[in-house]
């Protein structure tokens, strides 16, 4: 009995140890098995060397990164990934006084935010020419930044009928047009009512292109095409072989409403809309189209031949034309392949009417006739950029990586992990006819754990990848403000920004260049103060007005020295202007509060900057 019990206890102990051993072998490791070994010391040294730009040295490339819902553009130097400046576009920015002076306030209109996703550098013959930078705003707008002074010069729109301008601002190879497209279909014109049950028939999408003046860059209305109520996502203009065409991806070809994450993900293929923009421009010139919302809109039923639909799996995001213009790469974000369409086959299919049906009168081209390859790049392909020698780089949101593959052979040769969840990517001049290679920046959505913690509002991450060799190498982590969607990288030598506004070019009628001319004049209840800003006095040092006066202050920074900016901050009146050297800015406001309000130079200028101050003296009514 006793012996039996002992045996039983022994067996139980052995079994317990065996189970524990088995379980311990099965418990989760502390890190994923796929986790790569940390880079070796020599790799780090190479990475450090490749990204180190010594103090005083200059970067090789500019990176213009979109600021997303911050409404701005961030300028970086590559390869240092140093943030050089912020260009305010759709949002006031006290740092440069943007959105406070009359001109920029008027440009912003009633909107004080924008959602800026896709910057596009102006092109000549398919190459960046360094003249302008365009960027979209979801609020149906398009902005132009002049790269001579890195300033926003025009905000065009809101453009009628375009609701949620996401598929924008991609430009054509000679900057004839910048694309626009509605991500959120609505009944048009804006202001029209239709119940959500009538979504499939009464809601309309629009793809469009705005015209750009070849000399001044001025944006004006080009054309709009009435589209089925899909969600138009991204675009790209054809180049070289495919010049004259523009491509727009869309999701929700289901025409679904409600919980789109499910309802809009049912079909295996959505579409890429192929637009013959020359034909569309010609139709507008000929006076075709219906007036909707004050502009001429082309209805493909009435104007055939301007748009075709190419099936593309599944809920495609990016559509990117290869440098030679031969391939159109559509990246279905809910699948494991990216699709390469052959432009010549698309043309043949259109000629032969090789269609499988239509959507609201728009022919749907037979997928099998135009597809050259489905490239197994990995999960969640979003967007593709190009390098020299036929290399393509596709971002993989779900795999959190970048895949490198070859045009033509469709061979996937390398992958580099991204931290984490890469959205777009930007290679050096990687969407032009002559990509530069060398560097690629992954614009990632999540960054957790890669930087000092800054609380719940986490920065995004922009990671620099060396693509100069066979294997891609991650060489730098940079952290960016919300939220880089897409970026443009251009050789620094292509830009020649000015550093002061030459006096001779200042044509502002209120500009003055001598402190002797500064002063206050009154015309009824309108007061005009002409102000000179120069080290280290704001002249006049006092401006006296009566309560209720409309005060216009026109200030000229008469400096012609690099970096000598002066500010004009007026306390309690919510005014802060910054004038660059040689610049005149005007602000108009009602002096509705009586009392004495200091104004002072807000932009540090000199040893006697603190003394650069004065008073707005508002005499009360009583």
């Amino acid at each position, binding site marked *: 009995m006793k012996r039996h019990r002992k045996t039983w206890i022994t067996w139980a102990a052995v079994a317990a140890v065996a189970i524990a051993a088995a379980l311990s072998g099965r418990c989760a490791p502390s890190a994923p098995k796929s986790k790569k070994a940390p880079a070796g010391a020599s790799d780090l040294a190479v990475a450090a060397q490749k990204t180190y730009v010594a103090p005083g040295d200059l970067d090789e490339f500019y990176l213009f990164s979109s600021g997303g819902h911050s409404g701005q553009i961030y300028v970086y130097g590559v390869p240092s990934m140093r943030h050089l400046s912020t260009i305010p576009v759709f949002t006031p920015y006290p740092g440069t006084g943007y959105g406070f002076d009359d001109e920029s306030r008027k440009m912003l209109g009633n909107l004080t935010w924008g959602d800026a996703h896709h910057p596009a550098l102006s092109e000549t013959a398919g190459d960046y020419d360094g003249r302008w930078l365009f960027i979209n705003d979801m609020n149906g707008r398009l902005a132009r930044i002049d790269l001579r002074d890195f300033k926003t010069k025009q905000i065009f729109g809101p453009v009628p009928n375009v609701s949620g301008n996401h598929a924008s601002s991609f430009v054509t190879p000679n900057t004839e047009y910048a694309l626009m497209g509605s991500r959120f279909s609505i009944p048009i014109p804006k202001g029209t009512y239709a119940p959500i049950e009538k979504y499939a028939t009464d809601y309309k999408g629009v793809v469009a292109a705005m015209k750009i003046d070849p000399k001044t860059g001025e944006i004006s209305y080009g054309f709009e095409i009435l589209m089925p109520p899909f969600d138009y996502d991204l675009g790209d203009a054809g180049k070289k072989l495919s010049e004259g065409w523009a491509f727009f991806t869309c999701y929700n070809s289901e025409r679904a409403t409600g919980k789109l994450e499910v309802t809009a993900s049912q079909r295996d293929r959505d579409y890429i809309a192929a637009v013959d923009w020359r034909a569309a421009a010609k139709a507008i010139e000929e006076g075709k189209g219906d007036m909707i919302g004050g502009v001429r809109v082309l209805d493909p039923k009435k104007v055939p031949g301007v748009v075709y639909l190419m099936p593309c799996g599944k809920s495609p995001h990016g559509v990117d034309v290869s440098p030679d213009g031969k391939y159109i790469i559509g990246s279905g974000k809910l699948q494991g392949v990216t699709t390469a369409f052959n432009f010549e086959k698309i043309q043949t299919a259109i000629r032969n009417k090789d269609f499988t049906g239509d959507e609201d009168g728009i022919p749907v081209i037979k997928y099998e006739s135009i597809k050259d390859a489905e490239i197994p790049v990995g999960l969640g392909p979003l967007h593709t950029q190009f390098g020299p020698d036929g290399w393509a780089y596709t971002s993989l949101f779900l795999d959190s990586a970048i895949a490198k593959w070859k045009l033509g052979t469709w061979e996937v040769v390398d992958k580099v992990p991204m931290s984490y969840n890469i959205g777009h990517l930007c290679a050096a001049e990687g969407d032009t006819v002559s990509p530069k290679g060398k560097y690629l920046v992954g614009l990632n959505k999540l960054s957790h754990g890669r930087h000092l913690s800054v609380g719940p509002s986490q920065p995004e991450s922009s990671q620099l990848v060396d693509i100069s060799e066979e294997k891609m190498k991650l060489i730098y982590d940079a952290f960016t403000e919300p939220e880089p969607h897409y970026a443009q990288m251009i050789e620094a030598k292509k830009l020649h920004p000015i550093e002061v506004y030459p006096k001779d070019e200042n044509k502002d009628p209120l500009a003055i260049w001598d402190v002797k001319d500064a002063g206050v004049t009154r015309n009824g209840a309108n007061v005009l103060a002409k102000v000179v800003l*120069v*080290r*280290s006095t704001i002249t006049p040092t006092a401006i006296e007005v009566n309560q209720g006066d409309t005060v216009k202050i026109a200030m000229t920074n008469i*400096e*012609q*020295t690099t970096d000598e900016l002066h500010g004009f901050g007026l306390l309690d009146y919510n005014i802060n202007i910054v004038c660059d050297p040689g610049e005149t800015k005007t602000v108009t406001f009602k002096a509705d509060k009586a009392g004495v309000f200091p104004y002072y130079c807000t932009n540090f200028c*000199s*040893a*006697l900057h603190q*003394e650069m101050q004065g008073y707005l003296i508002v005499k009360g009514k009583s």
Partner: protein
Amino acid sequence: MKTSLERLSGLLDKPLETAPRVLLLAAVLLFAPAYLTPLWKMTMFAPQYPDGLRMQIYSYKLTGGNGGQDIKEINVLNHYIGMHELTTADFAEFKWIPFVVGALALVFLRAALLGRTGTLLDLFVLYLYFGLFSLWSFGYKLYSYGHNLAPTASVKVPPFMPPLMGFKKLANFEVYSYPSLGSYALAAVAVTLGAALFLAWREARADAAAETRVAG
């Protein structure tokens, strides 16, 4: 027996040979660059001005580097220490120096055609006087700028002498001041004139000696 004074005036009366005349003509030509190019250059470096601020002084005007902007910048900086503004209008020298240079050129030309050894001596003394006076005048100008500082200046600095020639550290600035092409041309005039005088003198002496031998 001639007295030494008689001998000297004999030497000075001797009309010029070819070589000194040619040298005089060369000196006349040298007045052209003296007028057309800067006489003096000043360059200032400070940490915040790594490219330097530059100023050129001609016989008749003041110019600044960077399209004139450097002069404006120098004046902006100088107003903090109460220094008088540097303007072309402020230099009386700019009125008389070009006139004197022109007059000298004419006198040199006259000497080249009608000159005697004595004319050369006159010219040499006159020219030396002109050169030294100009240099003193320029130096005094610099002294005045550095010493007549407005008592209301926001930054008080002890009166100072900007460098006339060479390098000097003034507050956060390294100041370099050197003669420029125009001054070298004027110096070359002096050398040419000196050479002409030397040659003329030597020939006159040789002539006089020959005369004495013949007379003896």
